């Protein structure tokens, strides 16, 4: 029987790791991730979850242990935040290059200096090019469902890549919401036992990842890109199947809201996407043709979906909880890059908001929408990147 629990996204992530039957969990504490691995420790020690729990001495070792375990043939799980993720950086490249289907929850937290424990996406977006799939969640139910979906996707032979499931610190990690924990048999049916592209095997002794000369290296990179493209095709299919089975569905790559006939589409990631829906409702009440598109999957980036949205919109406003110093938010850059070859492009306005946990409410977003619509009226975006709620 499915069961409703009221709990934080972090604890829900623990429930999901258990439901996915992860067999090796390697973890190191960091705020605001810690309560995930505390929950899993409870599950393992009470015998509710049959897994080996490796209490490593650093995040680098957490990822290394997951790589070792995944290569030795079991499903793995870990979780981290901010500096912990940064410390893993090298190992993230190794995991994707090794094509190991590791699933990791990233509880988003701003990077220091200075210390901040509050959310933004600068941690996970800094890992954009590591070859990991990246999902961004908007509520606790989506956290549970995305973790299960991520395993299914990563272990598909057309993909065999690791995935990050990102959720914002405190906004989700420590916020209680009701969540449906689906029937275990049905989850088992959706998610078959662990599968990977290769396994250490004494009966078939191979050497993994020795020196690869320029003669061969590029092909291995190309295959990762192919796997990303395959994932882009598979994510909506898996999301739809999941929806049929469990009643929860998230729009595949992009969670679209009121985008039909919208002049303005507000493009977001994570929880800002929820606030954007409220803002859209309010603006629509005033007769403004506004929609919202929440990028649920950032890698692979949903280029084709963005183009479809651009066909109907006259302006797209991107809200980045992130800044690539010396340029702009990644979301702004990538939406622009997606549309470059279109003939009749909409305007694109980039907004930076919510860094280091500053609130981004529906009111903030209504302000962004009003400004964008004003620029649309004038026929040009007056500021390439606008920082929202910035102190004078």
């Amino acid at each position: 029987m499915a069961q409703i629990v009221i709990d934080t996204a972090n604890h829900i992530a623990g429930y999901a790791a258990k439901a996915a039957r992860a067999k090796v969990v390697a973890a190191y504490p960091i705020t605001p991730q810690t309560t995930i691995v505390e929950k899993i420790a409870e599950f393992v020690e009470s015998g509710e979850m049959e897994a080996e729990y490796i209490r490593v001495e650093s995040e680098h070792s957490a990822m290394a242990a997951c790589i070792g375990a995944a290569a030795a043939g079991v499903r793995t799980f870990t979780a981290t935040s901010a500096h912990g993720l940064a410390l893993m950086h090298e190992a993230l490249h190794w995991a994707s290059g090794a094509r190991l289907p590791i699933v990791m929850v990233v509880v988003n937290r701003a990077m220091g200096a200075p210390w901040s424990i509050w959310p933004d996406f600068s941690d996970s977006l800094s890992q954009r090019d590591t070859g990991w799939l990246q999902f961004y969640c908007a509520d606790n139910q989506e956290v549970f469902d995305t973790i299960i979906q991520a395993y299914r996707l990563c272990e598909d032979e057309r993909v065999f890549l690791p995935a990050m499931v990102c959720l914002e610190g405190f906004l989700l990690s420590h916020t209680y919401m009701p969540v449906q924990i689906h029937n275990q048999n049905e989850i088992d049916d959706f998610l078959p036992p662990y599968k990977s592209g290769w396994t250490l095997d004494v009966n078939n002794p191979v050497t993994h990842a020795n020196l690869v000369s320029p003669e061969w290296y590029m092909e291995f990179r190309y295959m990762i890109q192919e796997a990303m493209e395959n994932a882009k095709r598979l994510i909506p299919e898996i999301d739809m199947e999941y929806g049929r089975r469990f009643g929860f569905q998230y729009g595949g790559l992009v969670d679209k809201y009121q985008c039909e006939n919208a002049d303005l589409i507000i493009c977001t990631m994570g929880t800002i996407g929820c606030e954007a829906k409220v803002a859209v409702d309010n603006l629509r009440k005033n007769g403004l043709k506004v929609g919202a598109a929440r990028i649920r999957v950032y890698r692979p980036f949903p280029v084709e979906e963005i183009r479809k949205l651009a066909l109907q919109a006259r302006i797209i406003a991107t809200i980045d909880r992130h800044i690539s110093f010396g340029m702009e938010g990644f979301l702004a850059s990538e939406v622009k890059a997606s549309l470059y070859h279109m003939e009749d492009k909409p305007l694109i306005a980039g907004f930076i908001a919510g860094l280091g946990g500053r609130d981004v409410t529906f009111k903030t977003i209504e302000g962004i929408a009003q400004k964008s619509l004003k620029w649309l009226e004038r026929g040009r975006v007056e500021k390439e990147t606008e920082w929202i709620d910035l102190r004078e």
Partner: protein
Amino acid sequence: MSFPKTRKEMPLTPLSLPTVGSMGKTGSWRTFKPVVNYSTCTKCTLCWIYCPDGAITRREDDSPEIDYEYCKGCGICANECPVKAITMEREEE
């Protein structure tokens, strides 16, 4: 066991297969060549155990057989032979 040529034949991540001569015929590195005098060899097998290259095979009767395709000519076998039954001779051009 087969080695890939095209991209389609490649594994998804580098999985290399055990191969004698993974670095080619390393015998070509040699400038001096160990030569065994079987009449004085006592079959103690020390040359076999100390060869860094595994280029000395231990025959059924424990006498050594040097594989010149792979012997790099380091000279450890000659240096360690307790009865000096192995000598290092300059390779001919």
